């Protein structure tokens, strides 16, 4: 990775002005934004702002072209077969809800089965809870083994003619595990089920090819891949989008509206009701182009190397326990420290300028499997390097010292 890459991200220089450098290790929650993306958004508002699609004047046509060019860029980024396979959403969460509501609510019946996994983010759990409540569909789970990997045998044991959906996370936001989604999609299709991949943590971090994976749907969030907040995407096989009922109703997504009925525009428009996040899409295109220029293969290698290094370095510290698979980890390193709560770890690190996340990481069922209430999580991205790991490790050692177990003191009555 270029050693000056931090300079692409204005926040680092701005934060340093406040006294200490920012060691940002929470990129799995959201990444920082390169100037290129920030400027693309500003430029959009300063030069091209207009509503899209229905405009009949030049400015609106420019805005529409910018918006649609972003669709093309996202399609290229994940190798979708066509731009029209990309639906813009707010984030991965909305993408997954779109599938659950538009496909699930209209296609699932009592007794149908939806297979998820032990390591899903709440965004791939709660929508199915809601839909199963409405439809009577049953949820099942692919089990995780002791090396924090999915046990495909438990999928094979559970999948069958009642299985209508298999939906799994590509890369776990807690463990960094890269799941064998290609194989999972193959098994889903063999059983006649649709296959959904939550790509929130893969799209930003590695080359992704949705056709190679063979999924029917793939969800991603712009803000986790150097893009703006408020813009995400859902990839879907176009024929599926054509057969699906719409999700949100409103402007842009219709063909004809009568007082009590309506018929719908072609996908992807059918799924984009109302004025979209145009500036967000413009910024997402800039983010995609930025990441392509860095090179996704390079991003992946850099992260895995840093993740491996950090896991090794932290494991040397007494009391630290790492939750990361032995072979297929990424730049996500979750850990706990004996006698120090993750939230306290985070405060200790914060006082040294190190931003990590502590909590359940929107994966409470996984926390229960790991038999912890929460973990601390350092997640690395392109702007991190080994020196960040060193700061992290030594700040951690300091904190552990502070929390060393002590006898009942006499300061309290």
């Amino acid at each position: 990775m270029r050693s000056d890459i931090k300079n692409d991200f204005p926040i680092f220089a701005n934060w340093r002005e406040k006294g200490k450098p920012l060691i940002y290790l929470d990129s799995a929650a959201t990444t920082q934004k390169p100037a290129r993306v920030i400027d693309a958004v500003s430029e959009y508002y300063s030069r091209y702002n207009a509503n899209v699609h229905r405009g009949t004047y030049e400015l609106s046509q420019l805005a529409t072209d910018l918006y649609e060019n972003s669709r093309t860029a996202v399609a290229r980024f994940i190798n979708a077969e066509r731009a029209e396979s990309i639906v813009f959403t707010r984030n991965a969460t909305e993408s997954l809800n779109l599938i659950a509501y538009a496909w699930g609510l209209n296609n699932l019946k009592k007794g149908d089965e939806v297979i998820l996994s032990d390591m899903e983010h709440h965004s791939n759990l709660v929508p199915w809870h809601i839909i199963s409540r409405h439809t009577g569909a049953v949820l099942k789970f692919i089990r995780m083994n002791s090396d924090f990997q999915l046990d495909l045998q438990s999928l094979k044991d559970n999948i069958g003619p009642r299985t209508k959906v298999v939906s799994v996370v590509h890369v776990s936001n807690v463990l960094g595990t890269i799941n064998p989604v290609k194989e999972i999609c193959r098994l889903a299709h063999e059983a006649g089920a649709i296959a959904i991949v939550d790509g929130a943590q893969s799209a930003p971090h590695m080359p992704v090819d949705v056709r190679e994976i063979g999924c029917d749907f793939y969800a991603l969030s712009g803000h986790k891949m150097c893009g703006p907040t408020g813009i995400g995407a859902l990839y879907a096989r176009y024929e599926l989008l054509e057969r699906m009922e719409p999700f949100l109703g409103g402007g842009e997504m219709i063909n004809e509206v009568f007082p009590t009925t309506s018929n719908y525009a072609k996908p992807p428009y059918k799924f984009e009701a109302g004025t979209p996040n145009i500036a967000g899409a413009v910024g997402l295109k800039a983010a995609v182009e930025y990441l392509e220029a860095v090179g996704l293969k390079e991003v992946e290698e850099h992260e895995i190397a840093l993740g491996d290094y950090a896991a090794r370095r932290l494991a040397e510290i007494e009391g630290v326990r790492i939750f990361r698979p032995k072979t297929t980890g990424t730049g996500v390193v979750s850990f706990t420290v004996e006698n120090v709560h993750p939230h306290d770890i985070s405060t200790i690190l914060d006082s040294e300028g190190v931003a990590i996340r502590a909590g359940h990481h929107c994966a409470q069922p996984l926390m229960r499997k790991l038999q912890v209430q929460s973990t601390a999580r350092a997640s690395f991205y392109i702007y991190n390097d080994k020196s960040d790991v060193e700061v992290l490790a030594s700040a951690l050692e300091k904190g552990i010292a502070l929390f060393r177990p002590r006898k009942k003191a006499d300061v309290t009555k």
Partner: protein
Amino acid sequence: MSLNDLFTEIILDHYQHPHNHGLIPNPTYSSRGFNESCGDDVQVSVLIKNGIIADARFSGAGCSISQASASIMTDLVKGKSIEEAKKLASRFYDMVKGTEGEYGEEMGDAISLQGVAKFPVRVKCATLGWHTLEEAFAKNDGPNSSEETK
């Protein structure tokens, strides 16, 4: 903004050796609170006798600040009326949010949480126990049936 302002000896002591830990079998009031931002989970139960908090206990799991604060709270409210406890809660919120004022004797060990005011992310941890106590008092269904039947 030194860590020692936050993780004082008293806090660490309450954290590592919490007071009044556990639950009252037939509490007059009880409630459970979550800190959505970090997963802290606290259960508070209270026994009222003759209008006075005769016993207060807490259980749960969480960070040093949430657990120590709950531990200190249970010490403090014992022997007080519900009104007094609520007044103390409100004084406590003021203190950890950094509202100017004199916080003296009546705060007991809670005074050691004054440093939280300099760590805005931790305010929710410090107030979790107190909010849960107030929620217990406020529950629409009034005192738990256990009191009713006693």
